[in-house]
């Protein structure tokens, strides 16, 4: 009975779990209001990322490309960034924030995007756009380093570091969610409201779930403002809920402005939500109100109906973003399930030091593997060739064929979840998230019992 942490041993990837860094930076970019990022590289680096965002959210998002072609790849493409900034500013007069996001191609050719920014500030912006507020922010996200997760982390740090400005204390708390869904932001803001805490939530992406209005609103966009970002320096403290997605920004603020800072845990499940509330209380001095005691009670009531009857000893594989995967695993364990394989899609060296992973290694009493730098073959090969038996898979849509081909029930969770409707609308965090997750897992298992005719009669009088 061991919990083993291992890295993928094959050189290559068979079906990737993660995409590369620029995608994470682009996810950050769309969360900021009056912001359109320019991705400096080939056009596919934007086109496909916009596609996966639109697959997941069923919405369109604005991101531009510097459209590097052969000549740029050979002779350098800084001129393409200059032109892109100009064209973008001319045609989108509301745009104030322009992250300039590098890719593998432009990192390999060594384009100096800081140099471009300096040149544009001294030239184009002064001459052609005097008086216009424009922030050009270079972000280095070579695709051959890290993953979409580190890309998010790096971009968020760079943007927060660019804007954060010490003025008057705001009394607000910084809450960094990590790469989550609109439903999660709603759930977190609900907890903050109940605690009577004013907070700057990074990023304000509830509007990604945008309405179809009679007036016609053509794109979805995040609502984090420049003032929000500037004000992060004046907060009473920071809670970063996803150490791998926002941890760097939180640490920056801690170091630079001496803000009290708590990083983690991701409030998935009852226990981690409790900890989140305790941390909120610690940083703000605000009590946990009766309303949340009641809300927690509703969640516990729902979970009690399910845990020992249906979830106990169920073997689960979980893959996706690290904070999500670890949080889900912790919650599953509280629900008496056995997370059996966890797959993290990149080679972040911090995984071995992660206290949550260490706790798993020290305490689980069943066989469990945590595979880092993983691909989907790490999961499929275990099922197909190494006798792994699973009752449930938790993960995003790119792994859907493992569930389909091996007939293993699966709950779509994380990013992207394009093969199920509206998943982005529902939270996995907070007490609301605990209810949603547990009940959806149960319903997926119930449907599978009926589909396979296994103890389906037991649901008659549950």
């Amino acid at each position, binding site marked *: 009975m061991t919990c083993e942490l291992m890295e993928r041993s*094959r*050189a*290559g*990837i*068979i*079906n*990737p779990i993660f*995409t*590369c*860094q620029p995608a994470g930076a682009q996810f950050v970019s769309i969360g900021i209001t009056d912001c359109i990022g320019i991705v400096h*590289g*080939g*056009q*596919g*680096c934007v*086109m*496909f*990322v*916009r*596609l*996966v965002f639109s*697959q997941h959210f069923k*919405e*369109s998002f604005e991101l*531009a*490309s*510097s*459209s590097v*072609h*052969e000549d*740029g*790849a050979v002779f350098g493409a800084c001129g*393409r*960034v200059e*032109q892109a*900034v100009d*064209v973008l500013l001319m*045609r*989108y007069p509301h745009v104030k924030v322009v992250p300039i996001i590098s*890719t*593998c*191609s432009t990192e*390999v*050719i060594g384009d100096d995007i800081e140099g471009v920014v300096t040149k544009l500030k001294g030239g184009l912006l002064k001459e052609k756009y005097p008086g216009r507020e424009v922030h050009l922010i270079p972000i280095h996200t*070579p*695709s*051959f*380093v890290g993953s979409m997760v580190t890309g998010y982390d790096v971009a968020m740090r760079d943007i927060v570091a660019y804007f954060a400005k010490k003025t008057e204390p705001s009394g607000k708390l910084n809450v960094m969610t990590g790469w989550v869904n609109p439903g999660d932001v709603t759930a977190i803001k609900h907890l903050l409201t109940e605690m009577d805490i004013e907070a700057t939530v990074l990023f304000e992406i509830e509007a990604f779930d*945008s309405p*179809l209005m*009679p*007036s*016609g609103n*053509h*794109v979805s966009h995040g609502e984090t403002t420049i003032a929000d970002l500037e004000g992060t320096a004046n907060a009473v403290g920071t809670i970063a809920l996803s150490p791998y997605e926002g941890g760097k920004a939180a640490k920056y603020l801690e170091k630079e402005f001496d803000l009290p800072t708590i990083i983690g845990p991701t409030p998935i499940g009852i226990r981690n939500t409790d900890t989140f509330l305790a941390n909120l209380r610690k940083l703000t001095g605000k009590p946990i109100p009766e309303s949340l005691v009641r809300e927690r009670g509703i969640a516990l009531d729902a979970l009690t109906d399910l845990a020992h009857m249906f979830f106990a000893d169920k073997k689960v594989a979980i893959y996706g973003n690290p904070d999500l995967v670890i949080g889900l695993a912790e919650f599953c364990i509280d629900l008496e399930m056995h997370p059996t394989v966890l797959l993290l899609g990149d080679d972040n060296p911090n995984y071995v030091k992660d206290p949550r992973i260490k706790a798993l290694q020290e305490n689980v009493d069943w066989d469990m593997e945590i595979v880092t730098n993983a691909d989907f*073959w790490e999961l499929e090969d275990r099922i197909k060739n190494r006798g792994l038996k699973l009752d449930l898979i938790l993960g995003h*849509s*790119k792994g*859907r*064929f493992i569930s389909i081909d091996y007939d293993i029930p699966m709950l779509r969770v994380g990013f992207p979840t394009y093969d199920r409707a509206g998943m982005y609308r529902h939270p996995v965090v907070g007490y609301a998230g605990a209810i949603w997750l547990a009940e959806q897992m149960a319903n997926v298992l119930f449907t599978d019992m009926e589909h396979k005719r296994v103890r389906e009669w037991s649901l008659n009088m549950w």
Partner: protein
Amino acid sequence: MPYHLFKCSECIPERKEHAVIKGPGETLADALPLGYLNTIPGTISERGCAYCGAKHVIGTPMKDVIHLSHGPVGCTYDTLQTKRYISDNDNFQIKYTFATDMKEKHIVFGAEKMLKQNIVEAFKAFPHIKAMTIYQTCASALIGDDINAIAAEVMEEMPGVDIFVCNSPGFGGPSQSGGHHKINIAWINQKVGTFEPEIKSDYVINYVGEYNIQGDQVVMDDYFKRMGIQVLSTFTGNGSYNDLRGMHRAHLNVLECARSAEYICNELRKRYGTPRLDIDGFGFGPLGASLRKVALFFGIEDRAKKIIEEETARWKPELDWYAARLKGKKVCLWPGGSKLWHWAHVIHDEMQVDVVSVYTKFGHQGDMEKGISRCEEGALAIDDPNELEGLEAMDMLEPDIIFTGKRPGEVAKKIRVPYLNAHAYHNGPWKGFEGWVRFARDIYNAVYSPIHELSKLDISKDEIPTDKGFVTRRMLSDANLPEEVRDSTEMRPYSGNFDCLAGYEDREYPYMKTQPAPGAAA
């Protein structure tokens, strides 16, 4: 000159020559936008990259192949589950895609060694697959890895396997189209003529530029087989690697998407003398004419005639039912490349819709020539459109529906214009006679969606109709139809199945004897 400069693009005057309005009496000499030029950075163009054009459009539909991208993981992730080209081997090629996972150390020290390790590992994981395609990406191109050399080395060491290399990095050309060209030429240079296929008919074709979107190829393949024609290979939808190595043995190249695959047809003509015949699987008229043309080439027109008659009798009343209800609906035909001319005239002729605009993301001037000549007067033609121009065009034209890609489709949705996926289809296949009816049905279902109707109502300002608990599509579409059309017993809505491909794989096609050419001595 009828150039149209969008208001949103006044500040980039070079865009002016990328859009035209086809005025009355104007010829192509007057109304032809520029095409296939470098993209203006920062426009939020809809274009993709040459890696996408090579791997995602043309390479990956090949079904019995390990598709390996040599680069960081993102390019591969992007091409996993973003297409609807299916295959009859349980969709191996859309389920599995491979990346060499290039990291910083490889950028610095080279990645050839790990590329080789990757190749060996991938074949080991899927021992039943004996062929591989390797795609260069921006990163591997820039560090200068010699992929061809590694592939040759592995083929020497592993005699049972065959590897194709496509060097088409993302930055290679203004759009996807650069990649189409590169993979066409690479395939004929490296692979055609290296395999001797089994010839089972006296009439042998390659079906080229067909990607089996939602089963298009299956439908077309069936027509060919019913005519006794052997489809030696399909380039590349549902196509088999070895069959495609044997392309040189066909008697005729039947070309569907000339934008993406005319290059290989032209090379096959040059190198092997195989004639090229351009066909069109969309629309009763063009499809019928296409089947007749192919049959005429082989002197088996009666076989084509039989199919056309059978299929027309079965499906025409259903097409007409939709056409009667779609008459005059305004369409923006905004696909990637060739569909702008495949569809421009025939959706007007056969579904009675009016094409008010055509655009192409990666087409060349030749595509615009064909498209503009086939669409109605007054239509707005746009090359390499961008987000703002698309919005401005929709404001100006007020279309009833848009045929375009996923992302611009979501933009259209928000201004309450329904969209159909022109690349991947909604409920395809759309080729073939039945498929064309399915397309018409998809248009009808979108245009007359009661939900779409509701989205036009502003409950804070407009009068809210309170007399209905529901509205059917027929209540909307038939309201103003003449009685004889509405109550016609000749016409009927689509009567096929949700999965119209069920049963195709069990069909049997008896060997059909050679027919002497008409007039030839017995």
